[in-house]
């Protein structure tokens, strides 16, 4: 993976809506084959960033290239390689679900009818329902089908699973895992359900107030923050613990739960031995890491 030119390049992209700085000098490269988790609070600029990639928004400053084409000038050739799901996006409300699928599929030579049938069966989609009267969850399922049906090279998912029930969310993640078997696919997924995101992403982008706080692989983010339990083998722990870059520390008698940044397990183990303590590492979830990153900035 990560071969050739990035499929999305953003250089100094800024966007303002009135008083709100929605994007602030964004520089970003998205490599082919990456599964990117786009994280951030409401209003942090995630959707705005995604919309720049497909040319729905135009940058006030800077430049966004998608498939080496200026996003403002994307042609059917490039747009035909992009699938997009928006949390509350429009669908053709007046159509029946089956009509909508037939209509959208008419645009794509690569429409995969087998995938469509499997998806409809797996996700229990009723073809005869009117789109405008679907529940939010059903609506999201249809939107996902329309975005993946033609097997796009770049799949942009903006809060795709927010309305799905737990079973459908599990199926959706399985579906994504299936898609990413093919290294030619790139997925950008923006979601607040971080426990889901962490199962599939290999790269994370954390945004806050229109700026990117972190742009790194998920593995390196996990290595950056380490949480461990330190248990004293004789008596209470000393008042001052010798760990640099401590993010948090909850002490209770001879035991402490500590989170540190930019340290290695080997070094921490050595320090624990010096303190005559037992150390037990516990991996941090993406949600915990996200909270730490955001709170420290």
């Amino acid at each position, binding site marked *: 993976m990560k071969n050739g030119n990035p499929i999305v390049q953003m250089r100094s992209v800024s966007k303002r*809506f009135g008083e709100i700085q*929605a994007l602030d000098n964004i520089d970003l490269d998205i490599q082919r084959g990456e599964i990117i988790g786009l994280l951030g609070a409401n209003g942090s600029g995630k959707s*705005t960033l995604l*919309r720049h990639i*497909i*040319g*729905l*928004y*135009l940058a006030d400053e800077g430049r966004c290239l998608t498939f080496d084409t200026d996003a*403002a*000038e*994307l*042609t*059917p*050739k*490039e*747009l*035909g390689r*992009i*699938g*997009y799901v*928006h949390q509350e*996006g*429009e*669908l*053709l*409300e*007046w*159509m029946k679900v089956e*009509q909508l699928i*037939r*209509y*959208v599929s*008419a*645009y*794509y*030579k690569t429409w995969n009818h087998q995938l469509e049938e499997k998806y409809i069966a797996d996700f229990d989609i009723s073809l005869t329902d*009117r789109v*405008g*009267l679907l529940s939010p969850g059903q609506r999201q399922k249809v939107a996902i089908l*329309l*975005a993946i049906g033609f097997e796009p090279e770049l799949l942009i998912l903006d809060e795709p699973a927010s309305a799905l029930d737990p079973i459908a969310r599990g199926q959706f993640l399985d579906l994504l895992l299936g898609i990413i078997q093919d290294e030619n696919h790139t997925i950008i997924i923006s979601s607040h359900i971080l426990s889901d995101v962490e199962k599939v992403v290999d790269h994370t982008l954390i945004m806050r107030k229109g700026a990117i706080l972190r742009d790194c692989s998920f593995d390196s983010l996990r290595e950056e923050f380490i949480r461990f339990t330190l248990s004293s083998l004789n008596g209470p722990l000393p008042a001052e613990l010798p760990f640099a870059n401590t993010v948090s520390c909850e002490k209770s008698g001879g035991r402490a739960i500590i989170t540190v940044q930019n340290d290695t397990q080997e070094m921490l183990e050595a320090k624990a031995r010096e303190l005559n303590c037992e150390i037990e590492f516990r991996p941090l979830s993406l949600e915990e890491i996200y909270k730490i990153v955001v709170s420290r900035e």
Partner: protein
Amino acid sequence: MGILTANLKHLYQRRGVWFWYVILLCQTPMILMPNSDRYLGYLIFSFFAGLMAGGLQKDVLVKPFSFCLPNHRRIPRTFIFWIGGVVNFILGCVFLRYPGLSYPYILLIILAGGFVGLTAYFYGVYSSFLALPTPAAGIIPLLAAGIVIFKWDVAVQNVVVSQPTVMIIVGGLMCVCCWKLLGRDFLARKYCGKLIMGMFDSWDLTKIEKYRQARAERNMTDRKVKFFEKAQRFFLGKMERYDFMSRGRYIWGNIYMTFGKYFGFWNMWHILGFFALIVFMILFFGFMGPRENDKRMIGILFIMPAFGMFSLDLMSYQTMVFPAGRRDKYYSTLILSAVITMLAGLLVLAVTGISIFLETILPEFSFRGGPMLRYYGMDIGDFYIYWLFMPVTLSLTLAFPRTKLLLKIALVMVFMQAWIVYEIVSKQNLIDMIGPIGVLGIIAFCWIDFLVVLHYVCMRRSLVSQGR
């Protein structure tokens, strides 16, 4: 703060209410009617006030939280009676102008006048608060005809002046009935959480869309399903004549999307209603004849399609990503606009033809000894007005996609002014004033302006606004 006080705050806190105040303000000439021997013009004001008060309270009851608020279920009744009482007994004071009435008899007259106003007010309340799903305003034209032709208002006014106690007793009984009717518990249950388009929901695009879908589903028939299947086959057939990713495929798809969006909601009654409205306008404006400037009022029908364009979304479904770039959107919207202009133009031509035909066959007549009424058809020479207005409204629709509802409302408000402007402009025919070349030049300028706006919107502006 009491519940009633909180409800009364809606009178200045809701944006939509201010629009209704403008409507009410427009009715003030009807209240005063100086130099007239008719005093019940304020009934129109009362009716609109009733519509507003009822609509406001229905909006409150629809919200599920209001169902659970203690002592809230009967507050709408109190609210409606408070507003009605205050407004109508003030309006009843117009009888102070009535000649020859002395104190204290005049107080009885004012009270009786107030109760007559309450009748119109409660009819407004009934239309907006009790009638589902839309206001039962069908009786209004009948009343209007009765007032114009048979002077019903004068008859009622005579009873108010000669028998005020009768009016007060009848009005009092009516108030008791309304008090009972509006206090029933089932109303709160009936409205709680129901998807109802309130009178102040014109700004809530999501709710409008949801409501339209629910209504469309209710109106769906087997015949309609078959029609849409046929329509889809037709348009998909047209799309498939072009290559994948080609502009032609998107253009046909876009025409299908846009027309489907609007026609998907129509049923036979909508179609009949639409044609009935056209027939009504052809007759109404035709019989209004020429004014002082010799210009036929029916010429206003050349502008009507342009007004209709305000409800049109020329660039819809932008958050659905199709293989179509901005340039494709530009051309497809251009072609869509051309198709709409041609279709509306054909309709205008048909209406013109019908009105000209009617002019030849409808005889001159007089009603109950009134002035002679003669029908005047449209002047085909004024067809240029259509070509002049269409690009202007299309441009406005494109330039202000989010505010078009407000724009439409504002335009309805200035409609009468536009009428006057039309009359002033048409004192002398525009073609006579600046010649056919000049008119062609103005039309060309308007269309070029439309092209510039369209190009800007498609190529230089964000295709969706924030929050959509």
